[in-house]
């Protein structure tokens, strides 16, 4: 199973529709400070069902919706879609291609979709089980924490890998 594309709109600094196409090789993301690189990593976590806003550097739903700037008004919702090739059936769904979509409104309401059918968060969590949440997005902070942790805390990483 592999990642094919990521589509974001209204998510943090990605106010307009933006699409990333991924192939099987290594993809590098580069750019100046504050341009939006880590926001892409946040979008991936978010669309896969992340519920802890602290992990996304925010506190509530509104924090991930484009807040507007001096030249552009705020958006009413944030949306992201991630598409996987599932020919090897690793994701527990009967589709060769799986698209997971999440949309959030300023009211705090969140909607989830799998291949355009509306589902519950529970279905997203089940569908994404093969994607170990622990190793999907790794930041500099997590990598250093793995070293500074106490031996008893570190076992968590191994339990996830087991």
């Amino acid at each position, binding site marked *: 199973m592999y990642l094919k594309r990521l589509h974001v709109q209204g998510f943090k600094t990605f106010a307009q529709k933006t699409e990333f196409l991924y192939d099987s090789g290594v*993809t*590098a993301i580069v750019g100046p400070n504050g*341009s939006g690189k880590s926001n*892409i990593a946040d979008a991936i976590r978010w669309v896969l069902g992340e519920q802890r806003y602290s992990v996304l550097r925010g506190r509530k739903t509104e924090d991930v919706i484009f807040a507007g700037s001096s030249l552009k008004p705020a958006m009413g919702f944030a949306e992201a879609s991630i598409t996987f090739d599932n020919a090897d059936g690793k994701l527990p769904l009967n589709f060769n291609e799986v698209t997971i979509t999440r949309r959030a409104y300023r009211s705090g309401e969140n909607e989830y979709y799998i291949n355009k059918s509306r589902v519950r968060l529970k279905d997203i969590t089940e569908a994404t089980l093969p994607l170990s949440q622990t*190793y999907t997005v790794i930041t500099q902070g997590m990598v250093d924490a793995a070293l500074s942790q106490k*031996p008893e805390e570190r076992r968590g990483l191994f*339990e996830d890998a087991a």
Partner: protein
Amino acid sequence: TQAQFSVTFDKVAEEFKRFFALLFNGGSARLVLTQPDNLAQTGIEILAQPPGKKPQSLALFSGGERALTAVALLFALLEVNPSPFCVLDEVDAALDESNVGRFCETLRTLAHKTQFIVITHNRGTIEAARTIYGVSMGSDSVSKIMSLRVDEVTDFKVHGSKLKR
């Protein structure tokens, strides 16, 4: 289960040893269970020694040496339990040029099992990629992207992205 934990631990420990030596171009490191008779509660200790140096507490390691040791552990976990895809957000930031080089070579060996998306400021890492997305901030404070297939690259400065070398 405890049997699973034990099998996983042994595999990760072996890979950690291997990746450490690859990334440091020498030296040695081990993972040690603090309570081998109590698998349900044991912690995991890291003992490491860069090439030519005496074994020392991780605390005395330099910033870059710590980052590289952590990457070795991370790669060991990914080798034993590959994630289909993995986003690395500036994990190579503290590495010098030669360490970035070994980081990339090692990343390539894992890249056939795991699809990597690497956010980086390091030119060496960018050179290891097949596709590059340049992200920039417009004057309207909206992110814009531009993609490059590596075979088309002549001058990185083209799309104005920051590149440290």
